[in-house]
């Protein structure tokens, strides 16, 4: 063993202080790379900031919308019609026959019974300069060429070696060629070669570009509102303003297919909600000696001003009672109420001899008409920034199927499902546009946040008196998997 160690010692002694001046281009490369890395560091920093901002925004949005939708949970209250109302009803019924229903609810009212509500939904001794060498084969020979002339013996080595090197030059793969020079000991077996070839091949094919499909799950907190127009006669009998929008949460499944370098198409199934609430306003009808006013004066929860008028949010609207069904002109269309909602009162104007509104429903709280949609989008995506952090422009159409049609009254009895809106068409078409931002977490997984506007081209209500076109701005936040 001692003898063996000799070689170690000899080699170490010989090579210890060995140093060669590297070719000048290396320093240039080092400088260049250092500069590039400084840039990357800055880039990485901004990327992290961007990613953090996206996550924070999504969390905030989720929290905010979730918070405000909680009150929207559908509590269907069992309805009991108070005794007074039945009396009122009978009174009005006799009158009703004399009044033309047209005047009250518009032309369509008489046929509107059919539509019932749907589901809810270092430094060295010697330095030998080496010239910059373009290829490796030549390099091996260089060591021989720079020999001091005194060593003649070694020049012979050099010649022998060069022959060997030339032989090597015929082989393209240097390392393999060297192995081949000693075939007895180091030849690779065929299986190994195949393994290596397979590895190299799979390395080449395993590129991001090849993953054309992407699927994702989204949640989309959003705000929905509408563009609405009513005919004059309809508006006359709608005495509340329904301009407030609605915050809600939607979501769904998306599937994308890359058709080109920058284009991809997307479809999926989404759930979305559209609806509006009555704007909170003081009750115009609550005159001093009105029923509504009396109701509030008896309710100690609400503050009254000096004149005894109520400042609590109230909802009041004209109603028409027809064969036990209460019809009312809502913002999104005529609402058929199954019964008088809890905490609401219907007064009849019989005594006032007014012919326009045979009744007024008064309640504190808010009235809302909510539609639940299953949406099937067909979207075209154009990638304007194709890096780890990507930006897409999105546009397309959306088929919205109404699966839920409900009207709610939210008062101190909770949220009551009071009926449904009539004349709502089941299938509607909407346009969609948005800007998608996504960040690749790995080869397969990416996260995305995408503000998108969905706007219904046509009124979703068949009633010519009502032009109700809802829109929704949602922040689609989700995780995508590419395959």
């Amino acid at each position, binding site marked *: 063993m001692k003898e063996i160690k000799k*070689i170690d010692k000899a080699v170490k002694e*010989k*090579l210890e202080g*060995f140093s060669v001046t590297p*070719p000048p281009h*290396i*320093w240039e490369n080092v400088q260049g790379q250092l500069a590039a890395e400084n840039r990357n560091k800055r880039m990485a920093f901004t990327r992290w900031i961007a990613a953090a901002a996206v996550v924070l925004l999504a969390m905030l949005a989720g929290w905010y919308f979730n918070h405000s939708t909680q009150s929207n949970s559908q509590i269907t209250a069992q309805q009991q019609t108070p005794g007074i109302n039945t009396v009122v009803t009978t009174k009005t019924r006799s009158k009703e026959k004399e009044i033309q229903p047209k005047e009250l609810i518009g032309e369509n009212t008489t046929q509107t019974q059919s539509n019932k509500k749907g589901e809810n939904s270092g430094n060295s001794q010697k330095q030998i300069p080496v010239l910059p060498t373009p290829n490796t084969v030549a390099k091996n020979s260089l060591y021989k060429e720079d020999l001091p002339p005194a060593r003649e013996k070694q020049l012979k080595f050099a010649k022998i070696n060069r022959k060997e090197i030339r032989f090597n030059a015929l082989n393209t793969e240097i*390392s393999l060629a060297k192995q081949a020079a000693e075939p007895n000991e180091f030849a690779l077996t065929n299986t190994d070669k195949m393994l290596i070839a397979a590895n190299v091949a799979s390395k080449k094919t395993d590129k991001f570009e090849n993953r054309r499909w992407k699927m994702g799950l989204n949640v989309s907190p959003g705000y929905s509102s509408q563009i609405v127009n009513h005919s004059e006669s309809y508006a006359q009998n709608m005495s509340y303003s329904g301009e407030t929008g609605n915050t809600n949460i939607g979501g769904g499944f998306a599937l994308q297919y890359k058709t080109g370098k920058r284009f991809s198409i997307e479809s999926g199934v989404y759930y979305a909600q559209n609806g509006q609430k009555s704007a909170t306003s003081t009750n115009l009808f609550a005159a001093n000696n009105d029923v509504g006013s009396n109701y509030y004066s008896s309710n100690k929860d609400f503050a009254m001003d000096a004149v005894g008028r109520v400042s609590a949010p109230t909802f009041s609207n004209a109603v028409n009672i027809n064969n036990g069904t209460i019809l009312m002109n809502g913002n999104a269309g005529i609402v058929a109420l199954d019964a008088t909602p809890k905490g609401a009162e219907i007064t009849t104007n019989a005594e006032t001899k007014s012919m326009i509104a045979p009744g007024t429903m008064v309640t504190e709280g808010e009235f809302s008409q909510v539609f639940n949609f299953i949406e099937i989008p067909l979207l075209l995506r154009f990638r304007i920034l194709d890096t780890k952090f990507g930006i897409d422009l999105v546009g397309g159409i959306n088929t919205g199927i109404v699966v839920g049609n409900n009207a709610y009254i939210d008062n101190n009895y909770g949220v009551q499902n009071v009926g449904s809106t009539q004349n709502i068409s089941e299938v509607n078409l909407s346009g969609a546009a948005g800007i998608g931002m996504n960040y690749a977490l790995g080869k397969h997984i990416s996260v995305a946040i995408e503000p998108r506007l969905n706007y219904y081209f046509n009124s979703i209500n068949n009633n010519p008196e009502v032009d109700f076109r809802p829109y929704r701005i949602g922040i689609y936040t989700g995780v995508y998997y590419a395959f």
Partner: protein
Amino acid sequence: MEDLKEIIEECVAGKAWAQAKLYELFAPKMFGVCLRYATDSAEAEDNLQEGFIKVFKYIDKFKHKGSFEGWMRRIMVNVSIEKYRKQHFMYPVEDIEIYESNVFSNDILDEISVQELIGLIQELPPRYRMVFNLFVMEGMGHKEISKEMNISEGTSKSNLARAREILQRKVKNLYREAETK
């Protein structure tokens, strides 16, 4: 060496002149180290480049304890090992056999030049070369080598023995060829 400390501190501050000076001081020696570990000069150049980038990147981590040259050298060796791992991950595990070596005389080694010796080391199969370098030049034990290379201690020992044997034979061949000519 007071000088070197100053250069290092300026490198930490990101001064370009200091980086250039440091490179000028150590590049030849480090290139020597890289050449021992590489299959050829091109690979050694790549490793040297990568190594220096690491040196500048992590120079603030150097605590001025122990030699700076040793620290730098360790980086070069690590880069070389890393490169080996990447390139040879699919090579099969070598057979574990201890080869008995022939008697070797120092004189023969004296006859050949440093360049020739480097050339012979470069011609060693990659893992033999790695193990031989780590053991002989870096003074590592088999235990340490087995960890670095992710091989068994037995493999490390047998690889070292094989490396020695091949080197000896090659040196002899060179010598013999020279004599017969």
